[in-house]
């Protein structure tokens, strides 16, 4: 145990530091608020630095352990391997439960530090104080996890000198490096708005000030969540060899759920900013978003739901479930206590208005989230109430998300042209005219290109319609304001919409018009299928330098041009074989090849499976456009004062803290 490495000792010390920083930070701020001790409050960022230093040390030690192959640690025995390439060795940290908790803790503490830094001059504001308490509390929870059921520095069995390495699926694509950290940035980032929401409830300061503070944090988290989810889809497409991007697997659903409520929030928050309404609802969405990240983590980490991606089971589930319950009790209690006081006095005049459209958007997104949650936990319900085993799979979600997607596309078409308060039919007739014709044009092009079937055609038509509405806004804004017409909430938001539309079109066409065939190929024969020609050049087998994997590839000449090599990769350490697809990406369609089992090196025959999938590239392009749009939306928009500044001032429950007017700060 003495030899249980300096890595473990320092790593533990780091975690201890993080726990200490978080716990004492929370207590100190709480005490400071109670005592109205400004001096004490002013010190609060230091606790955040302490916690941050602790987790950075812990992560550095874990990386060091992985890189130096310190097999005295159970975790390194589990995911480390003598011959994992360096880059994937770094990523090995988050390839199993304990390390992914460590990554989560790192990101979370980073956010806590960022909040402390951003508001370092306003530490004596109770709102900031309470937000920091919440951040510290959540941080402390994750630090405790690392000491309890997810101890990354536990000593391993003695005498082990090698391990299997991460799951082979997690070590053959560069996206493994980026997907989890980016996803976590989004996932964990929602803690910040949640903390401010709780702070607003506790202090009763439900003016729009805290919203301004957290809008960009929420947007930032949302953007990373979006990118993370898309990268996950990309990884699935490039690595898993079933030619799909999204399988409605519980783990995927767990990341989609907070995205849905988060998307609802970033829309409805605009109503609050503009009209001072829907405050309690917005709080609820933030709480729901954060609670869903925890619930999703519980579902996928506790082993109650089976999933190919899930890892870990046992006590960590109970911890997350308890934490989830605590969040619900605190939040619901606060909302029940404060809710009515915080309800805004205003009224939304007409359903046919910008606010009305946002409300409709919220209803649809909430129902969407409900559907995804229901489908994900339905097997548990059936098991508990009916004592049977069932699965709810992709076809169920596909079937239900199709109409929801169409309604959302329709809203995306109509909402951007709606004015606040009330729209007249004349105005709609005027503003929607060209977008509607663009929709008709898109429909025409789709039919001309050979699309069939009601659902995809309606989707294409609505996508064109929505794109028209978004373009109209962008064109008008740039005509009026030049390049400034591209930045700011509304305009940047329209760019995001364009990205979403690209993704919708890509999904609609690839889901509806993918074709596949199993093609037996023989050397010298040119096989024609689906407008493409396939010719087998050779079947080769290659063992990599480290002798850890052997790649059996069929080299196929596609359309008489380049050679593509779908393969079956066998990981010799664990005897697992994984199909590795080979893809020709194109603007309008991808050709996706996989090798069927059965061929041997040197054979002159091989069977491949070919998929022709339209428009896949537009998924990734759409994601890029969304990212750019979010960036533009986060920029401060036009500087003119809004006609209606927030309707409410802070509720003055704490007369002594008439400190900085939250509305004005940071603008």
């Amino acid at each position, binding site marked *: 145990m003495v030899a249980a490495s300096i890595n473990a000792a320092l790593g533990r010390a780091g975690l201890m530091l993080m726990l200490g920083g978080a716990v004492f930070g929370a207590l100190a701020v709480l005490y400071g608020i109670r005592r109205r001790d400004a001096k004490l409050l002013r010190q609060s960022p230091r606790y955040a630095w302490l916690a941050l230093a602790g987790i950075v040390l812990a992560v550095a030690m874990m990386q060091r352990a992985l890189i130096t192959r310190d097999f005295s640690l159970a975790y390194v025995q589990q995911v480390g391997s003598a011959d994992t390439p360096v880059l994937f060795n770094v990523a090995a940290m988050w390839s199993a439960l304990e390390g992914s908790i460590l990554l989560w803790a790192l990101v979370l503490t980073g956010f806590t530090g960022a909040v402390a830094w951003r508001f370092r001059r306003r530490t004596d504001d109770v709102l900031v104080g309470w937000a920091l308490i919440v951040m510290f509390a959540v941080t402390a929870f994750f630090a405790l996890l690392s000491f309890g059921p997810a101890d990354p520095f536990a000593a391993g069995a003695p005498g082990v000198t090698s391990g299997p390495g991460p799951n082979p699926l997690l070590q053959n694509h560069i996206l493994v490096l980026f997907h989890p950290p980016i996803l976590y940035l989004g996932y964990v980032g929602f803690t910040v708005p949640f903390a401010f929401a709780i702070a607003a409830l506790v202090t009763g300061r439900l003016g729009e000030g805290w919203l301004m503070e957290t809008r960009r944090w929420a947007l930032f988290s949302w953007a990373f969540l979006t990118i993370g989810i898309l990268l996950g889809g990309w990884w699935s497409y490039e690595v898993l060899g*079933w030619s799909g991007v999204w*399988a409605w697997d519980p783990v995927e659903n767990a990341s989609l759920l907070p995205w849905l409520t988060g998307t609802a929030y970033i829309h409805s928050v605009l109503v609050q900013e503009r009209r001072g309404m829907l405050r309690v609802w917005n709080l609820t969405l933030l709480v729901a978003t954060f609670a869903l990240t925890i619930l999703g983590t519980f579902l996928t980490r506790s082993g109650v739901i089976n999933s190919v991606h899930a890892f870990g089971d046992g006590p960590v589930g109970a911890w997350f479930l308890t934490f989830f319950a605590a969040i619900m009790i605190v939040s619901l209690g606060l909302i029940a206590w404060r809710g009515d006081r915080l309800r805004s006095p205003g009224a939304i*005049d007409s359903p046919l208005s910008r606010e009305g459209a946002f409300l409709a958007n919220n209803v649809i997104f909430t129902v969407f989230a409900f559907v995804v949650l229901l*489908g994900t936990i339905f097997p548990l319900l059936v098991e508990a109430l009916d004592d049977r085993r069932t699965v*709810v799979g*992709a076809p169920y979600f596909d079937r239900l998300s199709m109409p929801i997607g169409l309604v959302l596309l329709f809203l995306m078409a109509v909402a951007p042209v709606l004015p606040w308060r009330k729209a007249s039919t004349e105005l709609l*007739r005027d503003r929607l005219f060209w977008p509607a014709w663009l929709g008709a044009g898109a429909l*025409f092009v*789709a039919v001309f290109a050979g699309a069939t079937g009601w659902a995809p055609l309606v989707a294409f038509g609505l996508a064109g319609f929505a794109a028209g509405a978004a373009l109209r806004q962008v064109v008008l804004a740039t005509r009026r304001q030049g390049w400034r017409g591209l930045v700011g909430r509304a305009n940047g938001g329209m760019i995001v919409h364009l990205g979403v539309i690209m993704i919708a079109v890509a999904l609609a066409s690839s889901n509806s018009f993918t074709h*596949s065939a199993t093609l037996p190929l023989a050397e010298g024969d040119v096989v024609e299928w689906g407008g493409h020609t396939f010719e087998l050049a050779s079947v080769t087998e290659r063992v990599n330098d480290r002798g850890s994997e052997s790649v059996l590839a069929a080299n196929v000449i596609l359309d008489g041009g380049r050679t593509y090599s779908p393969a079956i990769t066998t990981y010799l350490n664990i005897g697992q074989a994984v199909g590795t697809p080979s893809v020709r990406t194109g603007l309008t369609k991808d050709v996706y090849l996989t090798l069927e089992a059965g061929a041997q090196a040197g054979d002159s025959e091989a069977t491949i499976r070919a998929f022709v999938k339209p428009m896949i590239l537009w998924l990734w392009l759409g994601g890029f456009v969304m990212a750019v749009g979010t960036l533009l939306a986060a920029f401060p928009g036009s500087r003119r004062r809004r006609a209606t500044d927030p309707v409410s001032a802070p509720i003055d429950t704490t007369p002594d803290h008439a400190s900085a007017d939250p509305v004005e700060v940071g603008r």
Partner: protein
Amino acid sequence: MRAWNQRLKRWPGWAALLVVVVVVLAVGATRSTGPQTQEDRIDAIARRVACPVCDGESVYESRNNASVAIRNEITDLVRENRSSDDQIVGFIENRYGAEVLLVPRASGFDALVWVLPAVAFVAGVAGLAVAFQRWKLQAAATGAPTDADRALVDAARRADGAEP
């Protein structure tokens, strides 16, 4: 030009749009979808069947033996070309039990998974309707805000006064 644009945007333009959309949609949606290859049919069925030994993956995605076996079985049945898709799925269900169905049935307890989303949607829309109703009543109780009222309110707000 502007006047022409305005006139176009009244009913003639919209009527033309309606005609175009209906015609194109009708043409596109009703024409033959082209021959569906057997592979496509096999894929479509395989997506509806869960791999019996793995975690929620469909037979379409999964690469293990049991899935390959079921896929082969589906392939045989499709090649025979005697049964409909539903019959094939029913056949697989008889062999492996109801837990291989990825699409829950619409009867018994499983029907809840279909009914509840509809209930949620209706509840959401009804909730919105109630909210708008309340807002309307509220507005009426305090004097319905006309556009003139709004102008007044705006003026008042600009004056930064607390007008009751």
